[in-house]
């Protein structure tokens, strides 16, 4: 819940950098004249990406001014959706799926790994402030359970050891290879397929 309320320590200033601004302008131009406010959700997401995965109040003000809408309206949207983080979450933002299929396949081990390697509690920054983790609901990769998401990438078919390996890499600043950690390609069956044998490219 704490991510849905603005953090106490807020940066004084926020402005879109040139690449974010280009992206934002492109999105705004999708909407007809006078309906620019529709772009607010996309712009919040761009701001979140630019600012290490969280949205400071200054960014909300910046967006409100850009779209000519009251601050409170942007604030309402930002607090409504759970995927907007309003407090710092670390440059590497780890989301561990703990919904039923992942839970059955041992998601709690992944959570243990998070507690050991990153921080004691959810949404707490790691000691070097580069990383934080949280439990989330289904991320839609149940076939490759258990899994977790780091920023934009999915890491699948994990267990505790592999998770720890991944965390060690990211804490060193490297980007581990995304995808299955049991050598699968996407969601293919594990020991070769058993059905549709006669179709070549199935």
């Amino acid at each position: 819940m704490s991510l849905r309320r603005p953090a106490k320590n807020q940066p004084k200033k926020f402005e879109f950098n040139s690449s974010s601004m280009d992206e934002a302008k492109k999105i705004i131009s999708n909407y007809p004249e006078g309906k620019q406010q529709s772009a607010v959700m996309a712009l919040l997401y761009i701001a979140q990406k630019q600012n290490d995965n969280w949205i400071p109040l200054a960014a909300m003000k910046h967006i409100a001014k850009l779209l000519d809408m009251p601050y409170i309206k942007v604030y309402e949207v930002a607090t409504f959706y759970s995927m907007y983080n309003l407090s710092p979450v670390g440059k590497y933002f780890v989301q561990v799926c703990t919904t039923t299929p992942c839970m059955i396949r041992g998601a709690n081990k992944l959570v243990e790994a998070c507690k050991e390697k990153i921080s004691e509690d959810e949404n707490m920054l790691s000691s070097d402030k580069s990383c934080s983790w949280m439990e989330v609901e289904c991320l839609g990769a149940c076939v490759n359970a258990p899994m977790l998401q780091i920023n934009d990438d999915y890491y699948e078919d994990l267990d505790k050891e592999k998770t720890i390996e991944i965390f060690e890499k990211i804490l060193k600043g490297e980007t581990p290879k995304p995808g299955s950690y049991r050598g699968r390609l996407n969601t293919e069956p594990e020991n070769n397929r058993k059905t549709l044998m006669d179709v070549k490219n199935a």
Partner: protein
Amino acid sequence: MPKLKVNDIEVEIDEGLTVLQACEKAGVEIPRFCYHEKLSIAGNCRMCLVEMEKSPKPIASCAMPAAEGMNIKTNTPFVEKARKGVMEFLLANHPLDCPVCDQGGECDLQDQSMFYGVDKSRFKENKRAVPEKYMGPLIKTQMTRCIHCTRCVRFATEIAGVSEIGAIGRGEDMQITTYLEEAMQSELSANVIDLCPVGALTSKPYVFEARPWELKKTETVDVMDAVGSNVRVDTYDWEVKRVLPLINEDINEEWISDKTRYACDGLLNQRLDTPYVKYNGKFEKASWDEVFKIIKSKFENASKDKVCGFVGDLTNMETGYIFKEFFDRTLNNSNYESRSDNRFIDNSERENYIFNSSINGIEESDLIFLIGANPRYEATILNARIRKAYVNNKTKVISLNDVGDLTYPYENLDGQTQSIKTIFEGSNEISKDIISAKKPMIVIGETFLKINSAKHLFNLIKTFLKKNNKFTDNWNPLNILSCDAATVGNFDLGILNNEINLLEELKSNKFEIIYLVGQDNLEFNKKNEFVIYQGSHGDKGAEIADIILPGSAYTEQDGFFTNLEGKIQKAYKASYPPGEAKEDWHIINELAEVMNNRKLFNDKDELESSMFNYIKLQQETKNLNHKEISSTNFQNEKLNIQLKDYYFSNVIARSSKTMIECNNSKINLKSTGTEG
């Protein structure tokens, strides 16, 4: 026009109404929390559920458009069950702390749960708790009580025009708050207290003061500005506890400004409760007989034309009239004046000093041109009407000056009087706009009337409008925006002197005796004048006085006030004057008796009928004696709108602690600069 049945009563309704409105027309009461006539439809409280034939589920009547042939039932067990269910959910997270809640006794939730609710709850879990929010010095919050009807959010966005309240979070975590808990920057903010159907938003200055059933309620009018909002004054014994709006669709609809509502604690402070006489620079208490005797001897020793009188901004018309009679009949002189500045008023016609298009007319207008006026601070309720016109009809608003945020967009010009001249000589884009507008409104503020070329420009504006046939049988485009409650009434009574400039003479110390009735705004250096001050509060006027006659405030005497549109309304006595203080007309009547052994009027009725005869006669003669005014010279100057401090515009507001807090909260906001 669609016809439908409500509980088997056939009703015919206008196109576009909702089922709830149709039910009301059929005389059926529908419980509701989120629905409010003046606000947009939200449909989120679900209390107004009714049964509709052929619908398997109950429908929210407030959001359902009424259509031909509907068969609505509101008294079936199905509806009763639905309402009970909704009420149970609403109460699940409501703290039920009615005994310590200020809304108790006038709470919609309390009333409706008695009617439609169940007597016990099945909710055994922990209730949610929401932290209190800061919403400024007027609104106390207890957000755990909130049922999320969002009336306050819609009011702030739609009526007040300040989008500062919103609902953050979602589901059980949803909270109503102002942006980052800053005070709401609106002069209408306290109306959300009336709108709140529960005790989530209550009045901070009135907290734990009284229960609604202990209070005596008096319906009267407000005097904080010239709009004349209809209000209800609630008193507990002598004290005015609170002021609430009354519905008057022609004037204030159902809103009042914060000043109207909260300046009432100024009625308890700084009051003059006994006559005083100044000996050696110190005030000493005296009796009425003593002060009257002193005044009599002073008047007798002074020469007739060395006496002058000034009437103030909150004085009711009876007082004004008897004051004038006192000068005309007892003192035989006409040195009386109600203006406290050199403003131009041509009172040969009534339309020259009232708001002719009327407040309702604002909604019909298609072009509003503000000259030297800031309606947001000079007449808050009227500004809300202009905003309403803008929201509904996209009415074009032009202002000569940039006057800051008016809660609606407007085009602003350079503020030079030369621009007025150009426009009303007809050689400008805006002149064309005015000519092509069907119902233009020219709103002239007091600031404009104070400039040197006011007379020239005023006549120019009027001639221009006449020439272009803007004066029709049902439309008068000329509007004067007065700021004070007594202004128009005093002009109707002719309490002004266009022959001699009394203010100039006062400044050059030509008078021996000055009689002030509630007049605190005069600027002059006192020398040897003998000043009599009659009024309710110890303010600037009383400070310079040699004799103080304690009068009454507007809640303590019956009295007429004419609002800026020229509507005469009566303010009723809700309380009584403190200590030895008397009603104002009474004091002058008694003084006249002391002077001449004869009262001016036998009683209040005689005074009233005489006053109305006088006004009637004036109107008739004014229409006959209309004379063309000679033109005067023009000189270009910059119009600077000088506002009296909004929260300190009159003696009552200046004595109010709440107004000081309001003022401070605005100053804080400015200095932190958080709004940028």
